[in-house]
């Protein structure tokens, strides 16, 4: 089935006007400078997400992963570009399709504590939205919630508890159940396992995989943990300073990464080993998004920097030999290309 992707992002952009601090403001006033600087949290992102696929997004803190996820799930409006939902631009949807879209794309948040209302009982946290949206009659709410809780591996007997009475892993399951309650097709996981320790993380990751199999879910999986992403994703996009710098299926990324940033990330990947190792970090830090470097945004930290990188920003191009090809048997859709934004051959 090579049907249209369920979600497509076209030149999606999100700017923030940084609230300037006192000194900066006075300075600007004195210098009679123009408007306050703009942060391009997400800049010109193009991406297709096929139904049933798990897309992993990796990048450093502040590179715009969350912003992208929030735009996808409709919490934040994009500044520019558009999101296509089943081929239709979201901005142009009529009320009912829009509603459908809002319910179809759900989000799971990083912090399993702050993302659950501390003053609501589990039954309300999970059951509120479906009742409000008329998916479930009020009378059936408890039964519905109980079903969902069972599905995510929680004992329905605990439905009248508050979220703080659960352990981190259980809390994250509540978050999952809440997202599932609206029968979504796409789930945006924003660092959904980052706050959990390894043993709980394994439980939740297994749950994600199981649900995917059972419900045919599509995941947009944001994480800075390459290990997690490699475990769960079909395809991985690497973000740097608001842009996707490399995207390919997981195996390609982990075996034949092209972009120097991706390579550096992979080198960082902590792994079990029995020998002492020497850590060699990436030079420098993520540049300020307020004042991004000219040319390739990665050039100040890149080991292979060339003069050209400082002036010309590389476009995201399909890698030679990384053209589209059909996926292995059993999986639907077309395998997208391996793309990278680097001047290196």
């Amino acid at each position: 089935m090579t049907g249209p992707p369920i979600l497509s992002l076209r030149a999606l952009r999100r700017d923030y006007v940084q609230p300037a601090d006192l000194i900066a403001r006075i300075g600007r006033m004195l210098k009679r400078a123009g408007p306050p600087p703009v942060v391009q949290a997400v800049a010109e992102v193009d991406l297709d997400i096929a139904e049933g696929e798990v897309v992993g997004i990796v990048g450093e803190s502040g590179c715009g992963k969350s912003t992208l996820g929030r735009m996808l799930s409709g919490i934040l409006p994009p500044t520019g570009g558009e999101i296509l939902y089943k081929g239709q631009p979201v901005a142009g949807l009529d009320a009912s399709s829009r509603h459908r879209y809002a319910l179809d794309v759900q989000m799971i948040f990083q912090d399993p504590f702050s993302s659950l209302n501390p003053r609501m009982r589990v039954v309300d946290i999970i059951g509120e939205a479906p009742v409000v949206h008329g998916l479930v009659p009020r009378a059936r709410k408890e039964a519905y919630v109980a079903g969902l809780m069972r599905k995510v591996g929680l004992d329905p007997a605990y439905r009248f508890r508050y979220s703080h009475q659960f352990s981190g892993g259980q809390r994250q399951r509540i978050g999952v159940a809440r997202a599932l309650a609206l029968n979504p097709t796409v789930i945006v996981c924003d660092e959904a396992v980052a706050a959990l320790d390894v043993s709980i993380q394994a439980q939740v990751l297994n749950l994600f995989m199981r649900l995917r199999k059972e419900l045919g879910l599509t995941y947009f999986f944001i994480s800075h943990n390459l290990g997690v992403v490699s475990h769960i994703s079909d395809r991985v996009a690497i973000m740097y300073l608001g842009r996707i710098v490399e995207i390919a299926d997981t195996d390609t990324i982990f075996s034949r990464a092209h972009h120097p940033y991706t390579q550096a990330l992979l080198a960082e990947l902590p792994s079990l080993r029995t020998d002492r190792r020497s850590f060699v970090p990436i030079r420098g830090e993520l540049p300020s998004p307020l004042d991004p470097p000219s040319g390739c945004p990665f050039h100040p930290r890149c080991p292979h920097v060339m003069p050209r990188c400082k002036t010309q920003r590389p476009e995201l191009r399909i890698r030679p030999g990384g053209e589209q090809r059909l996926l292995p048997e059993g999986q639907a859709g077309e395998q997208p290309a391996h793309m990278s934004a680097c001047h290196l051959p």
Partner: protein
Amino acid sequence: MQTINDLRSTQTDASVAQPDVAPGSSRESADLLLDIQGLRTGFHTREGVVKAVDGVSLQLRHGEILGLVGESGSGKSITGFSLMRLVDPPGRIEADRMHFDGRDLLSMSPEECRHMRGRDMAMIFQDPMMTLNPTLRVDTQMIEALQAHERISSKAARQRCVEVLEKVGIPSPAERLLVYPHHLSGGMRQRIAIAIALLNAPRLIIADEPTTALDVTIQGQILYEVQKLCRETGTALIWITHDLAVVSGLADRLAVMYAGRIVETGLTEDIIARAQHPYTHGLIASIPSIETRGAELFQIPGSTPSLLNLPPGCPFQARCYRADGACVEDPPMEDVAPGHAARCWHRGVQA
């Protein structure tokens, strides 16, 4: 009921403590920087005593790096705080022996303790966003750490701060001194916290999950710097984490904690390659990676039990795939190999 439990666990601890505290019997105590035996830290709450640390024994040589691993709530941080004598009431520290650098930590006066903290033994906390006081400038917070222990002019102190900041890889350190913490990124702050820990050139640094809140690239940098520092200065380090993958490349030795006890300890390569305790197996196997892709991860079912009123016996029995009737008895710590001990009736590498 509760008192009986109490008694029992202390008894077993005491009886167990003698034979197995020093797994590496070759080690001489003079050589040891840190020698802890039977450390018990309990929180006396209205509901009962939370035994957060329940008979932990640790030895550390000068310049040695120890990885303290375990899941959330297993008592890793409290162990660290107990060493620093930083447990707030209602917490109470008891130990059979608690020697640091030849001195008895238990009999120190509060003023001696204060001097010991920060000067001989320093700590780095998990959350870089919270460890620096948001209302004070970086220099204030650094200089006070120096002036708390020695009479030093502000100018000299500042000079020293700049040096240390440079050492932890902070560019243009003199300027960074003048800003407030919120102007800095998480990684920067954590490096400043590390710099503060290093200011007085302590002999032991306890790093309590210092990279958990940071992302990969920053984590890499911090690991790099810590490793470099330990090599250069010969400082001993206790690195607390729940992720074996992080410490496996760093630590000389590992100690795996569960429910307030150390369940397995040994050289890093021994533990990674030949883990004996089922809990350690779980920790190792639940790490996701490219190899595990598509497959179900091994998972330890359930979560850490409440340390309040733990049922008798092996605390891991309810989650253990090897548990059987024997587990209602608390297993002792026993050597499996020189320098490698585990606390389980069903020791053995995973099939």
